[in-house]
């Protein structure tokens, strides 16, 4: 962002796109894919370098999915894995000078959140059928209104939490650099370090919540 709150837009085929968000998304995708390529270029039984990092991510995701959904949720692991890596790289991308996070645009976070929520409902209906629809009317049909609000709130909270955290971090970095003279960089550096932490935490939170929502739809009903 060169000026807070103003986005460069491009017109393509009659639609408006946020150019910076798109390029930064492609950059983040390229970085994730590069890491994946570096890690899996020569896979060996005795891991080293990036392979260890990617293995840790895969095992963490698999472990979380097993804990939350059991073996039935394993087919979602690649999605969760991609989501986590993409969000982590995206969140940290904005901390590099002249770059921005794709996640500082509500278009990105709402897109991801809606994708997850739509998947939740589709999977719920496919896996459980009428029982899934029925549970919105539990314990009494009146609760349908509350459940509906809850389901509508899910993508909103999921997307706005990430978007707010990231854009607040970036805005505050710009503000700090403008307010504090350049010979006293300590507040900006401290905030940068905190933003690194926030970026990691928000990536984990988004991923974990997505998994929690998905597990509701996928896991076996406890009798």
């Amino acid at each position, binding site marked *: 962002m060169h000026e*807070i709150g103003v986005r460069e837009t491009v017109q393509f085929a009659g639609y408006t*796109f946020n150019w910076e968000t*798109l390029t930064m998304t*492609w950059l983040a995708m390229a970085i994730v894919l590069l890491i994946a390529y570096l890690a899996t270029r020569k896979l060996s039984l005795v891991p080293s370098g990036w392979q260890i990092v*990617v*293995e840790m991510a895969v095992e963490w995701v698999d472990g979380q999915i097993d804990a939350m959904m059991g073996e039935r949720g394993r087919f979602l692991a690649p999605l969760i894995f*991609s989501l986590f*890596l993409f969000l982590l790289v995206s969140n940290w991308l904005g901390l590099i000078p002249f770059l921005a996070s794709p996640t500082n645009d509500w*278009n*990105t976070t709402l897109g991801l959140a809606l994708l997850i929520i739509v998947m939740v409902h589709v999977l719920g209906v496919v896996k459980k059928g009428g029982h899934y629809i029925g549970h919105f009317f539990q314990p009494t049909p009146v609760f349908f209104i509350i459940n509906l609000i809850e389901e509508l709130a899910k993508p909103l909270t999921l997307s706005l939490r990430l978007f707010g955290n990231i854009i607040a971090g970036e805005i505050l970095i710009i503000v700090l650099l403008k307010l504090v003279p350049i010979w006293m960089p300590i507040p900006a550096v401290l905030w940068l370090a905190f933003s690194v932490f926030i970026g990691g935490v928000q990536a984990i939170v988004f991923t974990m919540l997505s998994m929690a929502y998905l597990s509701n739809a996928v896991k076996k009903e406890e009798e």
Partner: protein
Amino acid sequence: MIELNATFFAQILNFVLLAILLRAVAYKPVVKMLKARQDKIQESLDKADADVAEADKLLTQYKEKLAQANAKAEEIVKNAERRSGEEREAQRAAVKTEIEQMRSSARAEIAREREQAVTQLRAEVVALSMAAAGKIIAKNMDEKENEKLVAEFVDRLDKDKIGDLPC
């Protein structure tokens, strides 16, 4: 700042694309590799277990063999001892018979010598008798004197009598 536009759909597309690519490039190979590693470790553990069992079996076999060898060695030593004892016994018996032989031959020798001595003595007695007879004849005195001489001689003979041999 918060306005939604077509970027929304582009981002969904981007992410789905990324997920598909990552699944192909990273997730599947890594999971496959993890599985391979797990299999390898399991295999190694199994092999180690098998090796331990094999080693145990070998150890038992060797112990058994060692015990057998020990028993055999003991038997051999016992045999040797028995044989040497027998030999010693046989030698002792041989020596005993030899001693017995020597003793009996010595006895025979002694008997022969005595025989010889008796023969000699008899010859001597004859010679003495002859001498005594000569003396009697030479003297040729009265009968009284003769008798006395003979009695004297016979007395002397009785004094020198050896064993129960007749003179």
